[in-house]
């Protein structure tokens, strides 16, 4: 049923696209190689929808899909680096928005700024200001966002909460009350997966404890990592780990979300790609499962965004520019995102194309404070993130809050130095 709907949606978008007869350059020829890591169910179909929009505009361009799965993009990055440094970049590649991910490419001159496309397409007016802030580096734009994911979402099994007469927790203190009751009832309060999902949990706790402004300041040094507030967050985080499944670290993120589907666990803190997972399990948003911002983060939207870039000396540059123009259009974004589970990066998205969760995310994105996600590369440099993961990884084994705090302070000092 869901598949049918998606197909109808795609078909409808394609129809409307060709009916309008947008300014397509049907004579453009060349080859476009696209490196990305979207290979999972849902992601694959979303990418195909994006290709369809592009093919419709530029039928003579041949597309080479160079998808490299593995390690949330690390495998793709390994291949990319050798190609870029070796002087043979692909036409374009996927990269997360944010200083930490774009600087390593932009700073040594491996990318061409695309501010001219932003100006010609009028994107400065359609991409929201906080997103533009995340994208700007050295006064230029370097990449086109195709989507926005939210990372601070608490997903819950509605039936469990109903049965036990509980309300999903809005604050940290609520969380522990609820978790206590769930545990007494023999239900795992919070489903947790491998190490990166633990880092993900910690970043939402930091946001929930410090508030958006101070959280934002962690990444540029205006908020002191050594402060008591950060310590409070770490203590909360430590306590939360008492309420997770015993086999956390052994489960992938979707296996952890699966515990909520099976009714073994009541809650899961995960980005909204979990929404796509829940629907793929046959769940209907708002019926079997509900969502809300993670404890203490109401009014804040922890964002990450996938983007495409223009490498320096890219083969068939015209074709790459055409691709970037296309993925930035309203039509392309409204074809891609409903399938991907994310929302359009544009403020003028067609709401009818999206489901009830996505509409709520759009509303929140329009009015909330937007802050970057660490785990997904939007907040800090790769080196800092690597240190962060080391610190959290060790903490999970030893559960020593002081050591964790010291490690985090030390890695922040080194990174902000």
């Amino acid at each position, binding site marked *: 049923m869901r598949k049918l709907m998606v197909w109808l949606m795609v078909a409808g978008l394609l129809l409307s696209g060709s009916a309008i007869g947008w300014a397509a350059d049907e004579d453009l020829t060349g080859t476009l190689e696209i490196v990305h890591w979207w290979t999972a169910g849902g992601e694959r179909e979303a990418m195909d929808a994006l290709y369809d929009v592009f093919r419709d505009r530029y039928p003579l361009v041949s597309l080479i899909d160079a998808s490299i799965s593995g*390690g949330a993009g*690390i*495998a793709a*990055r*390994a291949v990319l*680096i050798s190609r*870029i*440094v070796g002087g043979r970049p692909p036409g374009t590649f996927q990269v997360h928005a944010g200083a930490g991910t774009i600087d*390593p*490419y932009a*700073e*040594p001159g*491996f990318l061409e700024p695309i501010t001219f496309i932003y100006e010609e397409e009028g994107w400065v007016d359609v991409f929201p200001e906080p997103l533009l802030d995340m994208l700007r580096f050295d006064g230029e734009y370097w990449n086109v966002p195709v989507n926005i994911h939210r990372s601070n979402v608490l997903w819950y099994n509605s039936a469990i909460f109903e049965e036990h007469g509980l309300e999903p927790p809005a604050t940290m203190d609520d969380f522990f009350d609820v978790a206590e009751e769930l545990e007494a009832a023999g239900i795992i309060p919070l489903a947790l997966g*491998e*190490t*990166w999902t633990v880092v993900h949990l910690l970043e939402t706790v930091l946001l929930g404890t410090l508030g958006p402004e101070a959280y934002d300041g962690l990444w540029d040094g205006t908020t002191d990592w050594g402060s008591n507030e950060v310590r409070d967050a770490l203590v909360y985080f430590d306590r939360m780990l008492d309420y997770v*499944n*015993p*086999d*956390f*670290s*052994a489960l*992938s993120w979707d296996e952890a979300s699966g515990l909520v589907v099976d009714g*073994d666990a009541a809650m899961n803190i995960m980005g909204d790609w979990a929404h796509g997972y829940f629907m793929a399990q046959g769940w209907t948003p708002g019926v079997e499962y509900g969502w809300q911002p993670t404890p203490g983060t109401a009014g804040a939207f922890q964002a990450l965004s996938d983007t495409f870039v223009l490498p320096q000396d890219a083969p068939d540059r015209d074709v790459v520019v055409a691709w970037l123009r296309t993925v930035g259009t309203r039509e392309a974004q409204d074809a891609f995102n409903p399938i991907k589970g994310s929302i359009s990066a544009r403020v003028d998205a067609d709401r009818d194309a999206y489901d009830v969760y996505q509409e709520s995310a759009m509303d929140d994105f329009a009015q909330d404070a937007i802050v970057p996600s660490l785990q997904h590369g939007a907040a800090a440099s*790769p*080196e800092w*993130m*690597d*240190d962060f*993961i*080391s610190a959290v*990884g*060790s*903490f*999970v*084994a*030893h559960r020593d809050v002081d050591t964790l705090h010291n490690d985090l302070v030390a890695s922040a000092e080194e990174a902000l130095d």
Partner: protein
Amino acid sequence: MGRKRKDRLGALALLLPSAAAIGVFVYGFVGWTVRVSMSDWRGIMPDYTFIGFQNFMTLFQQDRFQTNMWNTLVFTVAFIIVCLLLGLLLAVLLDRSMRGEWLFRTIFLFPMAISFVVTGVVWRWLLNPVMEGTRLTGLNLLLHEIGLGALASPWHMHPTWGMLAIALAATWQLSGYVMALYLAGIRGIPEQLRESARVDGASEWQIYRRVVLPMLRPVTLGAVVILGHISLKIFDLIMAISPEGGRGFSVEVPAMNMWFTTFRGLRFGRGAAIAVILFVMVSLLVIPYLRYSLRREVER
């Protein structure tokens, strides 16, 4: 004399291409990696600023890298010893039984035909760390079913001994191979030696202890080197069982840390330093063996 020289020239000409290729692609890159390991290369752009042994010092001070080294030690010791003992035991048993030997030999050897990734995927499920409750699966479920629930273990999630669980999977895969090595070795021992021992009144145990085992020493040495370099460089098996190295790096090894440091952290210098440390460890194992076997060849 002229003929001989011509032969030598011909041999040299034939050797040259592969020697040159190995010189560049093996030793050249080893040298280059050593150079990078002493550089401050961070980020994508190569940066060969010389910083001496700083990368190595940082690594050895890191909790995480110390855990990596401990894990390698635990894994190597457990994996080699268990593989050798089990392989020898199976080989001796097969050597003694007549009927169905081919069947058992095939069964024991089969795991070796599978890649580490496949083994890893299967063992990932078997090593489910849930120790009680409704979500038991794999080995822990089996233990509960046969009334040994008390032996249920967190397996690779154990902070100190997690590597033993990985060694279990690796042993399952490679002890059959060691068995084949030993079986070939035992079969290579002339029957007359055993016969004459029997004539002298030696018991079967004494024959194995005094005749067979000493004759098998070269096989053991070869097996240790083969298993040793596999265990020091193990990567794919663990990536398949636990892609992030268990809980708190309980099963992360230097090769995995190298991968994350280089491509997630973009610290190429430090990643190269880990590669050099791995290289030195494997050399310490292989070079004595090479010297030993070269000397034997000269003696022959």
